[in-house]
């Protein structure tokens, strides 16, 4: 029961995190590509409730930033110009869940722009970019992991179930894939593609490459499970009753691999999000101005940004709760899987 509760907790936490990113358009105050050229590298704005005279305001407000005299990247609050925060204002168009055209945002400011996490080099809202960027990074992770597990499951099942030369061939292939320097492979693939790749194509390219390269490890795990499962009594019995290979795999053997696959998924998804970040960081991912956590971080390659603008690190921080969530989920799943195995073994012995 305790295990079950932990699992539910992790799932809820992850659900909330993903929900925020899925509804990025609503939570983000602005379009992530819109530049505000008056405020490059604006630090996160502070939301006030008390003004400089000590008056308490019912509605939170921000002060308009202004450039410090003689500077191009140092700002200060213009205390003569407070702007109240508005909730649920109408703003830039976005598509909720990819198809619902909306204009309603969680918050905004009246006649002003509010930058809770500051802006980047072009004055684009870092919060909006972070949320929208999460969509790209997380979808890349989820789809990539899906592709990997699908390939891994098929290959692992074939190798484990049929054995013989198929097993040898597929497992050697798996070893080859594990030894592949995938980063350089990706550089090579990018070099062969046409000069300008649209963001969508670049995105799918990343997913396909990440997804196809990592199948070897899950395939080996699945193979192990299949090897042991196919010798189990109920499988032999089914075979004795004349079940076909396809039926056996579908009905009796692959379900046995589910806990391994789920655990693998929980481990792979955050890893693949990280892989997408690495690729975009190196400029191989989705092109500007589409945000992803990786290309948001790529400005940190410059020393001046690295030491001057701390809020540019935030996309790196964003991955942490996701990573923790998925790892927690993975360990819960693993424990549940182990317990289930023990349970079924005990039950099996009793009957």
């Amino acid at each position, binding site marked *: 029961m305790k295990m079950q509760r932990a699992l539910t907790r992790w799932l809820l936490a992850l659900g909330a995190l993903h929900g925020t990113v899925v509804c990025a358009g609503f939570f983000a105050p602005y379009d992530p*590509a819109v*530049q505000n*050229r008056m405020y*490059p590298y604006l630090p996160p704005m502070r939301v006030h409730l008390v003004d400089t005279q000590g008056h308490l305001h019912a509605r939170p407000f921000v002060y308009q930033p202004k450039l410090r005299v003689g500077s*191009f*990247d140092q700002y200060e609050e213009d205390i003569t110009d407070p702007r109240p925060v508005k909730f649920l204002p109408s703003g830039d*168009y976005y598509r909720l869940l990819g198809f619902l*055209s909306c204009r309603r945002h969680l918050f905004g400011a009246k006649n002003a722009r509010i930058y809770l996490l500051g802006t980047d*080099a*072009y*004055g684009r809202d870092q919060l909006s970019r972070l949320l929208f960027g999460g969509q790209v990074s997380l979808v890349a992770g989820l789809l990539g992991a899906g592709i990997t597990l699908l390939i891994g499951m098929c290959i692992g099942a074939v190798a484990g179930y049929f054995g013989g030369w198929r097993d040898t061939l597929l497992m050697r292939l798996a070893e080859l894939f594990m030894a592949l320097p995938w980063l350089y492979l990706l550089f090579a693939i990018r070099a062969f593609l046409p*000069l*300008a790749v*649209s963001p969508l194509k670049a995105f799918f390219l990343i997913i396909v490459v990440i997804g196809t390269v990592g199948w070897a490890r899950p395939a080996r795990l699945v193979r192990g499970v299949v090897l042991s499962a196919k010798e189990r009594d109920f499988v032999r019995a089914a075979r004795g009753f004349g079940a076909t290979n396809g039926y056996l795999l579908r009905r009796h053997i692959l379900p046995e691999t589910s806990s391994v696959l789920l655990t693998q998924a929980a481990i792979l998804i955050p890893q693949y999000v990280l892989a997408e970040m690495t690729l975009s960081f190196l*400029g191989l991912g989705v*092109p*500007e*101005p589409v945000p992803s956590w990786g290309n948001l971080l790529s400005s940190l390659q*410059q*020393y*001046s*940004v690295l*030491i*001057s603008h701390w809020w540019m690190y935030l996309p790196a921080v964003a991955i942490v709760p996701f990573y923790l969530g998925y790892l927690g989920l993975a360990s819960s799943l693993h424990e549940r899987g182990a317990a289930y195995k023990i349970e079924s073994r005990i039950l099996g012995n009793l009957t």
Partner: protein
Amino acid sequence: MKKPTANFKRCWILSTLLLSAFTFIGRRAIASPPEKTTEKEELLVLPGEVGRRGERLVVSLRGEPKTLNPLISVDTPSREVIGTMQADLVHINRATQLTEPALAKSWKISPDGLRYTLVLRRGLKFSDGYPMDADDVLFTFRLYLDEKVHAPQRDLLIFDGKPVSLQKVDSHTIVFQLPKPYGVMERMFDGWAILPRHLLEKPYEEGKIAQVGALTTPPNQWAGLGPFRLKEYVAGQRLVLERNPYYWKTDAKGNRLPYLDELVFLFVPSADAQVLRFQSGETGVISRLGAENFSVLARDQKDYAMVDAGPGLEYNFLFFNLNDLGEKAPPEMIQKQKWFRDLKFRQAVSSAVDREAIVRLVYQGRGAALWGLVTPGNRRWADEKLPHPPRSLEKARELLKEAGFSWGVPGNGDSWLQDSNGKPVEFSIIAQSSSSERSKMAALIQDDLKQLGMRVQVVPLESRSLLNRVTQTKQYDACVLGAASYDADPNSDINVWLSSGGLHLWNPSQAHPATPWEAEIDRLINEQMYASTFEQRKKLYDRAQEVLAENQPMIFLVSPNILAGAKNTIGNFHPAVLEPYVFWNVEQLYLKNGTENAAR
């Protein structure tokens, strides 16, 4: 392809290369200098702050120099180092941008403009103590002119296929005979290092001149007339130069220059690493700085001071592929070129580009918006009449409408620009991935053009493959690039101007000018090259700038300021906007309190 003209070649050199200095090596062991009674030295007295002898200055270099031999050097680090080891006959003062006497104490031009008579200083000696006279000058120019030597500067000495000829009048007087009057000959002497005949004659006769001047040359086999001479080279780490005791300049009080005992170049490959070394006090001077690193350094100036020398001669621009791609061009490209060739389209793009935003966002205000090739840093040659139209999206839309473009609204609220055939206007801009500044410019332009309904993609490319696409394969739509003139004189950019020029980027190396306005520019530039007075040249050059601005083959964006910094202990530090930005007066740099002991 037509053989490039002399003009083109001349400029080719000027802009691709240096105007630095030069040197040589002998393979034989060097005997001690001849013991002849030395004549009275005619030293050049430099005005300015009087410094203090001694100490060493450590600076960083972006890469390891390839050679010390001015006859074959083309890379920036080599040029920078050679500039401190060699000297020229007539020199361009980097502060005033005017010529002034150097090894030649005076010169006369014949009324027909064909004969330049140069009189050398007396008592000049190379850094190994050997005296220098007119024979060294004759020998030097023989090398530069020898086709087998392949000196990159050679073409500058060829006028309409005929070379400059030299005659020695006496041991201190040389006459340069030009085949054609040439307006800027005296400026051209800048950067031609006078080489030591006693060291180079033998390798030259043996045909090994290209092999001399390696960094591994023993210091006693290399000499020049510059303020410093070779002392030590540690591969991959540093190059140490020491004071040339025979240098021919003194300060106002008669102390022989240079002040520094040693000049150490550390090889530091990345800009960020250079900043870190400077910040930690390991190096004393930093130059070629980006605006962002500059403000990082400027934020905590304690032991050092940062200097913004104002707009330099670098110009950044956007250009479209206007090459004649022939019949094998893909139909898509032909379609795009139809837009690019439309003057109104280019004017609309120019009108939509927010140059002020580039200055602010890319250069943090340390730059100047640009509407022509000649930057505001080039005070003598910039055309003040050149219009500076402010950014206007309305005007851009109007121009596009006049050119037959219209806006389609595909349902989602955004409107896209389409041409008269209903094809959406969509193209890519390539930019150097190594230059964060140019990538940023491209991203800003992308957003500017989005507001006109153009779908633009920015493709960052590694520099070499970018240049390959632009100059060789011509597979690109548009490109953001930058170039820097090496001299304030117009002729340093000639191969950008002329339609036959290799850096006439939008359509390089044309056999015949593709358009009437390119023919017009060719004519103006050629005329100014041979015009004799500054006023005549300026008039012609101004007109060329106007023709270029009217036709917008290059959409000029911004010219960054020259940014540098030095420790407070370094005296006479006055960065200039011409290369070499900080070492043009290296002989006058000195350390104030003897606190500099940085490198090993």
